[in-house]
């Protein structure tokens, strides 16, 4: 009981500290913080669905891009909160369609299908922009300050973690896990697998779109290649696997080290970044088989004397 209390208090303190960052840290630290928060949202949302259900999605960049474009298109005409709502709604809607379309797919076929879908979205967007507007890029003029973007992302990250936590503890989360273990059994146990898969996929997609929308405020220059960058999908996957998909804070534990490691490496070894990062990956796989989360859980168990 008291450990629960300590944990909640600790979380609140951490939150307060994070919220205060813009006041005592430099603009550079803030920028790093923004990157971390944005990836936390993406990775946690991704893991909330793909973790239990074992449906590995590479469509992250599609939803992120949708969010970016919602802002680029609508920000000149509508107030920011409305635009954000639109971004989430569009992301949700597209994910619904995607989810319904991919019902029969599983395993690596689902993975590559989602990748193909993200690329298709990008190509269609490119073609549309060129033919309708004779231009590919948009310049977005907004005067949201970096601090405001940071706070928005912080709020979104907290919301995402809360939603992910709620999903895990609810019976829907449990049902998703059953789907992940054996979908046939899930269906036969009376779980409406279709509705559950599609709705939870769409929910996480909406969160990803919101992240994209908020990040877009930093960009000024927006085009389909930068907004729908498939590398983001891979980065999210890698971070989630690194941190450990099983735990709630797993994604966060993948995001933070990777972002910080990248910052450190690009400063100290700008030319050797790739090689050093690659070696780090190989080492991590060999020595951290359950991801960072697994490592920490192991420590926690040893500290509290509980059997792992």
């Amino acid at each position, binding site marked *: 009981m008291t450990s629960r209390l300590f944990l909640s208090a600790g979380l609140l303190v951490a939150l307060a500290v994070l919220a205060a960052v813009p006041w005592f840290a*430099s*603009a*550079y630290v803030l*920028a*790093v913080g*923004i*990157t971390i928060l944005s990836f936390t949202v993406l990775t946690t949302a991704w893991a909330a669905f793909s973790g239990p259900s074992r449906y590995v999605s590479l469509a992250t960049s599609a939803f992120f891009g949708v969010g970016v474009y919602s802002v680029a298109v609508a920000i000149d005409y509508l107030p920011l909160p409305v635009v954000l709502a639109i971004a989430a709604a569009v992301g949700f809607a597209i994910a619904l369609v995607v989810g319904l379309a991919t019902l029969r797919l599983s395993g690596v076929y689902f993975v590559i299908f989602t990748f193909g879908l993200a690329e298709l979205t990008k*190509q269609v967007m*490119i*073609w549309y922009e*060129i033919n309708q507007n*004779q*231009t*590919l*890029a948009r*310049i977005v*003029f907004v005067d949201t300050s970096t601090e405001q973007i940071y706070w928005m992302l912080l709020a979104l990250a907290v919301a995402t973690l809360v939603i992910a936590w709620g999903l895990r503890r609810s019976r829907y989360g449990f049902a998703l896990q059953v789907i992940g273990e054996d979908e046939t059994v899930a269906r036969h146990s009376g779980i409406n697998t279709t509705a559950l898969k599609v709705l939870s996929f769409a929910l996480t997609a909406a969160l990803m779109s919101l992240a994209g929308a908020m*990040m877009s405020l*930093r*960009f*000024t*220059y927006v*085009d389909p*290649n*930068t907004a729908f*960058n498939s*590398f983001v999908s891979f980065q999210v996957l890698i971070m989630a696997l690194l941190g450990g998909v099983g735990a709630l804070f797993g994604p966060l534990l993948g995001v933070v080290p990777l972002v910080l490691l990248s*910052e450190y490496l*690009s*400063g100290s070894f*700008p*030319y050797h*970044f*790739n090689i050093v990062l690659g070696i780090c990956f190989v080492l991590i796989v060999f020595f951290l088989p359950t991801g960072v989360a697994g490592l920490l859980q192991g420590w926690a168990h040893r500290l509290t004397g509980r059997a792992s």
Partner: protein
Amino acid sequence: MLGRICRLGIALATALGVSAALADEAPESIRLGYAISLTGPYAPGAESTGWSQYKLWQKDVNDAGGIYLKKYDKKVPVELVEYDDRSQIDEMLKLVERLIIEDKVDFVLAPWGSAMNMAVAPLLSKYKYPTIHLTASGEKIRGAAPRWPYSFWALTQPDYTAESMAGMLARFKEEGKIDGRIAIMSVADQLGIELNSAMVKAAEKHGIEVVYNKSYPLGVSDLSTQIREMAALEPDAFFGFSYPTDTFMLTEQSIVLGFSPKMFYTAVGTPFAPFKGKFGDKVEGIMGFGGLDIAAPGLAEYWQRHIDMWDRPSESGAVGAYATMEILKNAIEAVGEVDRDKVREYIAGNAHDTIWGQIKFEAQMNSDPWTTGQWQNGEFVGILPADKPNAQPVLFPKPKF
């Protein structure tokens, strides 16, 4: 006697006081920082038109002792601080803030590519860091530049480029050398699209007929069908608004399929040494994006120094990048100290002599940039605008492939 000692004492004290004031120590170095794409899809461009020029310039400056700051009557060496943005805009923005806030560099050098440069301009103006952007070409820049007062844009923009080329076509048509029918293909990316629509507008204005106009996605593997279609229409000129991979592919497939119109233009990548390396003497007469003054003072020496340092020849875009560094150096020397506001004013208000010719900024835009070059006798030379110093006459018609 006492009076004299007193007067001496006062003089000494004054002298000491004055020299104490003058003993603002000269900085140990002038620090220039940049976040550029060392890895990722932008790496090729960033290397040839970005950091290779920054480093060559640094070597040249430091070999001569450094930049002369007349405030301290001293030459101060240049130090570079570099980061890899991995071809991601967000990374670049973050790293530029790191350069300004943590590393406290004196000036920031431009990243590579239109997207990157347009994304970073507002940030640099916010922190009042004057920067000359070379590798950026886009319709919106001209209109947006006043919002970013510390930005300067040195490359030819799509409208200016198209107007320049359409004007040339009109002249040739008038002289009866061509019928005035052109075919266009463009890569479905920002520069390709903008050059395309600018060209269409300029062609219409000058009475040139566009008989074929198609765009293709980045990463396409085969354009032979399109080339066949164009060949069947027998246009006078072909304009490929392309990036290096498609520049190479369009040229190769045109050679194979025997598509050899009187004028042949491929955009980015045409001036590169590997282009000549791949196609040998078949590059003769091919036109490309950008140009240079082949007899600009200092160019020949620069060319050799480039080969000495990087083991490969330079190209017109890189010359432009080096020129932006020359402008920065001249501005700092003219101002006499590291004062970003004064440097900004100097860049804006003066004509600068560089290895790219004389450059002047009007409303922060290069008032008279090179638009087009052409391979002539194994050398890529500037041909348009035709009234620029040492612009070579257009080699017409292009020899059959």
